[in-house]
Protein backbone atom coordinates (compact mmCIF):
# COMPACT_ATOMS: atom_id res chain seq x y z
CA UNK A 1 0.00 0.00 0.00
CA UNK A 2 2.86 2.29 0.87
CA UNK A 3 4.47 1.73 -2.51
CA UNK A 4 1.24 2.55 -4.38
CA UNK A 5 0.92 5.79 -2.39
CA UNK A 6 4.55 6.60 -3.09
CA UNK A 7 4.01 5.98 -6.81
CA UNK A 8 0.97 8.29 -6.85
CA UNK A 9 2.86 11.02 -4.97
CA UNK A 10 5.89 10.70 -7.26
CA UNK A 11 3.62 10.86 -10.34
CA UNK A 12 1.95 14.01 -9.01
CA UNK A 13 5.32 15.63 -8.33
CA UNK A 14 6.56 14.68 -11.81
CA UNK A 15 3.34 16.03 -13.36
CA UNK A 16 3.73 19.31 -11.46
CA UNK A 17 7.35 19.59 -12.55
CA UNK A 18 6.41 18.89 -16.19
CA UNK A 19 3.68 21.57 -15.94
CA UNK A 20 6.06 24.16 -14.48
CA UNK A 21 8.84 23.36 -16.96
CA UNK A 22 6.64 23.52 -20.08
CA UNK A 23 4.75 26.63 -18.91
CA UNK A 24 7.83 28.60 -17.85
CA UNK A 25 9.74 27.63 -21.00
CA UNK A 26 6.88 28.83 -23.25
CA UNK A 27 6.26 31.94 -21.11
CA UNK A 28 9.91 32.92 -21.38
CA UNK A 29 9.76 32.49 -25.18
CA UNK A 30 6.53 34.58 -25.39
CA UNK A 31 7.87 37.34 -23.11
CA UNK A 32 11.09 37.55 -25.10
CA UNK A 33 9.28 37.81 -28.42
CA UNK A 34 6.70 40.36 -27.19
CA UNK A 35 9.17 42.52 -25.26
CA UNK A 36 10.94 43.46 -28.48
CA UNK A 37 7.81 43.75 -30.62
CA UNK A 38 6.68 47.26 -31.49
CA UNK A 39 3.01 47.92 -32.17
CA UNK A 40 3.72 48.20 -35.88
CA UNK A 41 5.71 44.96 -35.94
CA UNK A 42 2.76 43.27 -34.28
CA UNK A 43 0.50 44.60 -37.06
CA UNK A 44 2.89 43.32 -39.76
CA UNK A 45 3.22 39.89 -38.18
CA UNK A 46 -0.43 39.45 -37.21
CA UNK A 47 -1.78 40.30 -40.67
CA UNK A 48 1.09 38.81 -42.70
CA UNK A 49 1.94 42.04 -44.52
CA UNK A 50 4.22 41.85 -47.54
CA UNK A 51 7.13 44.30 -47.77
CA UNK A 52 5.18 46.55 -50.16
CA UNK A 53 2.03 46.53 -48.01
CA UNK A 54 4.15 47.18 -44.95
CA UNK A 55 5.81 50.20 -46.56
CA UNK A 56 2.50 51.71 -47.74
CA UNK A 57 0.80 51.11 -44.38
CA UNK A 58 3.77 52.53 -42.50
CA UNK A 59 3.51 55.73 -44.56
CA UNK A 60 -0.22 55.95 -43.73
CA UNK A 61 0.57 55.62 -40.03
CA UNK A 62 3.30 58.27 -40.15
CA UNK A 63 0.92 60.70 -41.86
CA UNK A 64 -1.82 59.97 -39.33
CA UNK A 65 0.20 60.10 -36.07
CA UNK A 66 0.53 63.95 -35.78
CA UNK A 67 -3.20 64.43 -36.45
CA UNK A 68 -4.05 61.70 -33.90
CA UNK A 69 -1.74 63.20 -31.30
CA UNK A 70 -3.24 66.69 -31.74
CA UNK A 71 -6.68 65.27 -31.27
CA UNK A 72 -5.50 63.31 -28.22
CA UNK A 73 -4.08 66.49 -26.61
CA UNK A 74 -7.28 68.41 -27.35
CA UNK A 75 -9.37 65.59 -25.89
CA UNK A 76 -7.21 65.36 -22.73
CA UNK A 77 -7.43 69.14 -22.19
CA UNK A 78 -11.22 69.14 -22.56
CA UNK A 79 -11.52 66.18 -20.22
CA UNK A 80 -9.41 67.97 -17.59
CA UNK A 81 -11.49 71.13 -18.01
CA UNK A 82 -14.68 69.14 -17.52
CA UNK A 83 -13.23 67.46 -14.42
CA UNK A 84 -12.27 70.85 -12.95
CA UNK A 85 -15.72 72.29 -13.68
CA UNK A 86 -17.43 69.22 -12.24
CA UNK A 87 -15.39 69.45 -9.04
CA UNK A 88 -16.31 73.11 -8.57
CA UNK A 89 -19.71 73.23 -6.74
CA UNK A 90 -20.24 76.80 -7.92
CA UNK A 91 -20.18 75.72 -11.58
CA UNK A 92 -22.63 72.84 -11.21
CA UNK A 93 -25.03 72.87 -14.21
CA UNK A 94 -23.44 76.12 -15.37
CA UNK A 95 -23.05 76.97 -19.11
CA UNK A 96 -19.30 76.19 -18.75
CA UNK A 97 -20.14 72.72 -17.48
CA UNK A 98 -22.60 72.11 -20.32
CA UNK A 99 -20.15 73.45 -22.90
CA UNK A 100 -17.26 71.27 -21.67
CA UNK A 101 -19.46 68.15 -21.57
CA UNK A 102 -20.80 68.81 -25.06
CA UNK A 103 -17.33 69.48 -26.41
CA UNK A 104 -15.99 66.26 -24.89
CA UNK A 105 -18.81 64.22 -26.42
CA UNK A 106 -18.11 65.85 -29.82
CA UNK A 107 -14.41 65.05 -29.53
CA UNK A 108 -15.18 61.42 -28.67
CA UNK A 109 -17.39 61.10 -31.73
CA UNK A 110 -14.77 62.77 -33.86
CA UNK A 111 -12.07 60.46 -32.48
CA UNK A 112 -14.14 57.40 -33.38
CA UNK A 113 -14.78 58.79 -36.86
CA UNK A 114 -11.09 59.52 -37.48
CA UNK A 115 -10.14 56.11 -36.15
CA UNK A 116 -12.67 54.35 -38.39
CA UNK A 117 -11.62 56.36 -41.44
CA UNK A 118 -8.01 55.49 -40.76
CA UNK A 119 -8.54 51.75 -40.22
CA UNK A 120 -10.46 51.58 -43.52
CA UNK A 121 -7.51 53.25 -45.26
CA UNK A 122 -5.16 50.69 -43.71
CA UNK A 123 -7.49 47.77 -44.48
CA UNK A 124 -7.62 48.84 -48.13
CA UNK A 125 -3.90 48.06 -48.39
CA UNK A 126 -4.27 44.52 -47.04
CA UNK A 127 -5.30 41.24 -48.66
CA UNK A 128 -9.12 40.87 -48.57
CA UNK A 129 -9.21 38.16 -45.91
CA UNK A 130 -6.71 39.91 -43.64
CA UNK A 131 -8.47 43.20 -44.27
CA UNK A 132 -11.76 41.81 -42.90
CA UNK A 133 -9.99 40.38 -39.87
CA UNK A 134 -8.21 43.68 -39.22
CA UNK A 135 -11.46 45.66 -39.42
CA UNK A 136 -13.23 43.22 -37.15
CA UNK A 137 -10.49 43.44 -34.54
CA UNK A 138 -10.23 47.23 -34.69
CA UNK A 139 -13.99 47.85 -34.59
CA UNK A 140 -14.17 45.86 -31.37
CA UNK A 141 -11.87 48.49 -29.83
CA UNK A 142 -14.24 51.35 -30.69
CA UNK A 143 -16.71 50.00 -28.12
CA UNK A 144 -13.94 49.58 -25.57
CA UNK A 145 -12.80 53.16 -26.21
CA UNK A 146 -16.38 54.30 -25.55
CA UNK A 147 -16.42 52.40 -22.24
CA UNK A 148 -13.05 53.88 -21.37
CA UNK A 149 -14.23 57.46 -21.97
CA UNK A 150 -17.28 56.87 -19.74
CA UNK A 151 -15.08 55.75 -16.81
Amino acid at each position, binding site marked *: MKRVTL*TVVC*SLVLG*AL*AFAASYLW*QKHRIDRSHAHTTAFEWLSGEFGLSDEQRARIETLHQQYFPECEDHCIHY*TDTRQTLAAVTNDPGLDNSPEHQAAATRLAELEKE*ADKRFIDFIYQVAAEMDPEQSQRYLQKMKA*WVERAGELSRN
Partner: protein
Amino acid sequence: MKHEGYDDQFEAALQSLQGQGAGQDLTGFEHEVWSEIAIRDGGRTSAGTASSSSLPAPALAACVVGAIALGSLFGLSKAQAYDRESSLAVERRYVESIHPVMMSADHSQHVHH
Protein backbone atom coordinates in the same frame (compact mmCIF):
# COMPACT_ATOMS: atom_id res chain seq x y z
CA MET B 1 -9.84 -35.32 1.38
CA LYS B 2 -6.94 -37.04 3.10
CA HIS B 3 -4.85 -33.94 2.74
CA GLU B 4 -7.55 -31.78 4.32
CA GLY B 5 -7.50 -34.08 7.35
CA TYR B 6 -3.74 -33.81 7.67
CA ASP B 7 -3.95 -30.04 7.30
CA ASP B 8 -6.53 -29.80 10.07
CA GLN B 9 -4.43 -31.93 12.38
CA PHE B 10 -1.36 -29.91 11.56
CA GLU B 11 -3.14 -26.62 12.25
CA ALA B 12 -4.48 -27.97 15.55
CA ALA B 13 -1.05 -29.21 16.61
CA LEU B 14 0.50 -25.92 15.53
CA GLN B 15 -1.96 -23.90 17.56
CA SER B 16 -1.55 -26.10 20.59
CA LEU B 17 2.23 -25.83 20.42
CA GLN B 18 2.07 -22.06 19.83
CA GLY B 19 -0.34 -21.82 22.78
CA GLN B 20 2.26 -23.42 25.00
CA GLY B 21 4.42 -20.30 24.49
CA ALA B 22 8.13 -19.75 24.10
CA GLY B 23 8.83 -20.49 27.68
CA GLN B 24 7.90 -24.23 27.34
CA ASP B 25 10.68 -26.74 27.28
CA LEU B 26 11.28 -28.00 23.79
CA THR B 27 13.62 -30.76 22.80
CA GLY B 28 16.48 -29.74 20.53
CA PHE B 29 14.78 -31.40 17.56
CA GLU B 30 11.44 -29.61 18.19
CA HIS B 31 13.24 -26.32 18.60
CA GLU B 32 15.00 -26.77 15.27
CA VAL B 33 11.75 -27.71 13.54
CA TRP B 34 9.95 -24.63 14.90
CA SER B 35 12.83 -22.39 14.00
CA GLU B 36 12.77 -23.75 10.46
CA ILE B 37 8.99 -23.26 10.26
CA ALA B 38 9.31 -19.70 11.59
CA ILE B 39 12.00 -18.79 9.07
CA ARG B 40 10.05 -20.23 6.09
CA ASP B 41 6.77 -18.73 7.26
CA GLY B 42 8.34 -15.28 7.68
CA GLY B 43 9.95 -15.39 4.23
CA ARG B 44 6.69 -16.36 2.57
CA THR B 45 4.74 -13.60 4.37
CA SER B 46 7.19 -10.82 3.46
CA ALA B 47 7.34 -11.95 -0.19
CA GLY B 48 3.53 -11.91 -0.35
CA THR B 49 3.32 -8.42 1.15
CA ALA B 50 5.90 -7.05 -1.28
CA SER B 51 4.17 -8.40 -4.36
CA SER B 52 0.74 -7.11 -3.30
CA SER B 53 1.94 -3.57 -2.47
CA SER B 54 4.13 -2.82 -5.47
CA LEU B 55 2.81 -1.98 -8.95
CA PRO B 56 3.84 -4.00 -11.98
CA ALA B 57 6.53 -2.27 -14.07
CA PRO B 58 4.24 -1.38 -17.05
CA ALA B 59 1.68 0.22 -14.72
CA LEU B 60 4.43 2.18 -12.99
CA ALA B 61 5.80 3.36 -16.34
CA ALA B 62 2.30 4.31 -17.49
CA CYS B 63 1.78 6.35 -14.29
CA VAL B 64 5.04 8.25 -14.79
CA VAL B 65 4.56 8.85 -18.52
CA GLY B 66 0.90 9.82 -18.01
CA ALA B 67 1.77 12.28 -15.25
CA ILE B 68 4.50 13.92 -17.34
CA ALA B 69 2.28 14.05 -20.44
CA LEU B 70 -0.67 15.54 -18.54
CA GLY B 71 1.56 18.07 -16.75
CA SER B 72 3.15 19.17 -20.02
CA LEU B 73 -0.24 19.41 -21.72
CA PHE B 74 -1.66 21.63 -18.97
CA GLY B 75 1.53 23.72 -19.03
CA LEU B 76 1.28 24.25 -22.78
CA SER B 77 -2.41 25.10 -22.63
CA LYS B 78 -1.77 27.63 -19.85
CA ALA B 79 1.07 29.10 -21.92
CA GLN B 80 -1.28 29.39 -24.88
CA ALA B 81 -3.71 31.41 -22.75
CA TYR B 82 -0.80 33.60 -21.64
CA ASP B 83 0.21 34.08 -25.28
CA ARG B 84 -3.31 35.25 -26.15
CA GLU B 85 -3.24 37.75 -23.25
CA SER B 86 0.20 39.06 -24.25
CA SER B 87 -0.87 39.34 -27.85
CA LEU B 88 -3.94 41.32 -26.78
CA ALA B 89 -1.68 43.66 -24.78
CA VAL B 90 0.41 44.37 -27.90
CA GLU B 91 -2.76 44.85 -29.93
CA ARG B 92 -3.96 47.34 -27.31
CA ARG B 93 -0.63 49.19 -27.63
CA TYR B 94 -1.23 49.44 -31.36
CA VAL B 95 -4.78 50.76 -30.92
CA GLU B 96 -3.58 53.26 -28.32
CA SER B 97 -1.25 54.65 -30.96
CA ILE B 98 -4.05 55.31 -33.47
CA HIS B 99 -7.18 56.08 -31.40
CA PRO B 100 -7.11 59.54 -29.76
CA VAL B 101 -9.31 58.55 -26.78
CA MET B 102 -7.30 55.37 -26.14
CA MET B 103 -4.10 57.34 -26.57
CA SER B 104 -5.28 59.87 -23.99
CA ALA B 105 -6.12 57.04 -21.56
CA ASP B 106 -2.64 55.64 -22.08
CA HIS B 107 -1.07 59.05 -21.42
CA SER B 108 -3.11 59.60 -18.26
CA GLN B 109 -2.10 56.12 -17.03
CA HIS B 110 1.55 57.07 -17.49
CA VAL B 111 0.98 60.33 -15.64
CA HIS B 112 -0.80 58.61 -12.73
CA HIS B 113 1.78 55.81 -12.37
